């Protein structure tokens, strides 16, 4: 519309989204090479573009910014491009352009959100993400996936509308589209907060995640695990850092899902619950809001994307090679899938934050930040959630060890193993050498994770948790995996809504029927009758007592009534004649003048 002043290179978001449009035109190796080039090109742009505002253009009265590059956005840009690259390698053998196009648009949307410099650009890419990601679920092409995708998009449209309403009110109040720190006060910021909270899966707005992710395609779930929640983490860190409410929501968010994860049978659903639990750590840290806490949240998002994608890749490999995903149907897969098993264990060790795995160097920052801020209860909750390692142990245990299911599935294709290997390598690399990661965090880092005390404390916590797992398992107290599902908050819109539907049906339809009877049938007749006979009746009502007083008998009265009605029917009232004469006179007067 107006001048486009693009700086160096193309915005990473557009590299992905425009690149995605060419996918259906390409075939075979050219397509694979082209796809893998997109994240590399975006990564190169991110490496070279200096900090500051880039890629601005003017729309109507507002300056829109596609590239606000600072330390906070750049690190999210790095990890989003990196995980796109790994996920694409994992997906190379998928013969479905729909998944490629939607996956790339989805990644582009997440990058757009990350580098958006104003609220309008943020909203546009927010919705791009919602729509594109839905197709990763739809692409499974099963009935339950379609239903889950439908619920998923409805929840995200609702969240998006909250965000939009908040943005509109915010712009109305402040007059700017500024996408920066906000105080949680007033309808506008609350709506924006709720909009972000939906994508961050903060309870009770979380059930879309465990509902939809396990229904996605094998590769789709890997993409999904990376972008939606973590871009919400970024936006939350940008806008509501230091909001006390987030500390408590985050702490609860770390605790509640692990109960569900213990009981859940579907492996990818276990992973979805532990995803929510991990994002809880980030939310809590954002709420604490100190430099150490924000660093911890960002570092944890970075590590989490890697190990969660790794776990979803391992689970996806199991699903693809065996066709099964329930704990009750799997077991003993280490015998024929040792590499997948090995990668899965690395992912589980990373998410459980064992020393020398990536989760350790980031989660400790968050727990320490809670301690330095003297949040005793929060600290205990976070340690409880860290100690409760069953969700992380059970995925490798039930899939690869445990009871031998007799399934002898082969390892997945080389590209899938390579993608898992890359993610696993990075998990260990970051765990052993955290300095490069610390170097790119938003604030300067003065934190040493590898002190003897830290390591011993953490190992005690985890190993005795593991001991509890072993003892409960051996004694049979551990709740058996069973073929069942567990109801969560989504009950309200999956079952509860039927009650609502019936209420609507019974209530509104009855109201409708009553209204129709009253307003469509009876009222018009009544009004017509009033209009026709009303004045005459009034006159009779007021005049007949006087007639009776003056000695009129019943017969006279009846005649009088008929006369009045006839007068009204022919409009020949004395007062009407007078009025007509007066009106005529006025017209004449007007004409003469």
């Amino acid at each position: 519309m107006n001048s486009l002043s693009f700086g160096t290179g193309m915005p990473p978001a557009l590299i992905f989204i425009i690149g995605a449009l060419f996918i259906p035109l390409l075939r075979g190796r050219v397509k694979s090479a082209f796809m893998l080039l997109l994240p590399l090109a975006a990564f190169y742009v991110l490496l070279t573009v200096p900090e500051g505002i880039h890629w601005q253009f003017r729309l109507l009265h507002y300056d829109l910014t596609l590239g606000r590059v600072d330390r906070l956005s750049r690190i999210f840009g790095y990890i989003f491009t990196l995980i796109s690259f790994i996920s694409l390698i994992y997906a190379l053998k998928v013969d479905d352009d729909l998944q490629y196009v939607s996956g790339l648009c989805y990644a582009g949307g997440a990058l757009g959100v990350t580098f958006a410099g104003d609220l309008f650009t943020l909203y546009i890419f927010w919705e791009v993400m919602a729509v594109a990601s839905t197709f990763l679920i739809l692409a499974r092409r099963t009935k339950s996936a379609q239903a889950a995708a439908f619920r998923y998009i409805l929840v995200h449209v609702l969240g998006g509308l909250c965000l939009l309403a908040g943005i509109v009110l915010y712009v109305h109040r402040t007059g700017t589209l500024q996408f920066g720190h906000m105080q949680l006060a007033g309808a506008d910021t609350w709506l924006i907060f709720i909009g972000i909270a939906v994508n961050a899966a903060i309870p009770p707005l979380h059930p879309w995640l465990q509902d939809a992710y396990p229904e996605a395609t094998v590769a789709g779930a890997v993409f999904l695990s990376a972008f939606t929640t973590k871009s919400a983490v970024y936006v939350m860190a940008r806008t509501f850092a230091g909001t006390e409410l987030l500390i408590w929501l985050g702490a609860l968010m770390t605790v509640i899902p692990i109960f569900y994860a213990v009981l859940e049978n579907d492996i990818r659903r276990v992973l979805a619950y532990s995803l929510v639990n991990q994002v809880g750590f980030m939310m809590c840290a954002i709420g604490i809001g100190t430099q150490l806490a924000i660093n911890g949240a960002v570092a944890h998002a970075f590590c989490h994307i890697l190990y969660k994608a790794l776990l979803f890749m391992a689970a996806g490999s199991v699903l693809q090679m065996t066709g099964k995903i329930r704990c009750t149907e799997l077991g003993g897969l280490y015998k024929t899938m040792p590499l997948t098993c090995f990668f899965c264990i690395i992912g589980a060790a990373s998410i459980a934050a064992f020393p020398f795995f990536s989760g350790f160097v980031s989660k400790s920052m968050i727990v320490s930040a809670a301690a330095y801020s003297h949040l005793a209860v929060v600290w205990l909750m976070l340690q409880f959630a860290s100690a409760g390692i069953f969700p992380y142990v059970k995925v490798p245990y039930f899939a690869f060890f445990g009871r031998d299911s007799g399934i002898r599935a082969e390892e997945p294709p080389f590209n899938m193993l390579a993608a898992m290997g890359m993610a696993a390598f990075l998990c260990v690399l970051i765990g052993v050498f955290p300095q490069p990661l610390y170097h790119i965090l938003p604030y300067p880092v003065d934190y040493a994770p590898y002190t003897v005390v830290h390591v011993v404390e953490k190992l005690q916590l985890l190993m005795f948790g593991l001991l509890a797992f072993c003892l409960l398992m051996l004694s049979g107290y551990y709740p058996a995996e069973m073929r069942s599902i567990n109801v969560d908050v989504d009950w309200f819109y999956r079952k509860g809504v039927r009650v609502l539907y019936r209420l609507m049906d019974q209530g509104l339809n009855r109201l409708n029927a009553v209204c129709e009877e009253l307003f469509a049938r009876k009222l018009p007749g009544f009004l017509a009758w009033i209009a026709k006979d009303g004045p005459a009746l009034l006159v009779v009502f007021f005049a007949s007592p006087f007639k009776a007083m003056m000695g009129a008998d019943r017969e006279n009265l009846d005649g009088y009534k008929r006369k009045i009605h006839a007068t009204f029917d022919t409009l020949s009232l004395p007062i009407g004649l007078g009025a007509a004469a007066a009106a005529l006179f006025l017209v004449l007067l007007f004409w003469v003048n």
Partner: protein
Amino acid sequence: MKRELKIFDNPDNVKRLLRVFYASLVVLVLLDFIIHKHAAFPWEGQFGFFATYGFVSCVALIFIAKGLRRLIRRDEDYYDRPEDS
């Protein structure tokens, strides 16, 4: 016939693994005597706090989860069933 790993089919191997595991637990607790903790909270410096907290948390987690299961467990086709009641 594809090559298969059978390392855990042998109960002795499982026992060996568990023995190493239990030994490492003992070592970890004993380390509490040696290292000095700079505690942010008073309870952090207590002997064996982290070991106890880790163990108790997990046991509590399981028992609460078992209780929760009674409340939230449904059949797998719960959401797919046509409305009956």
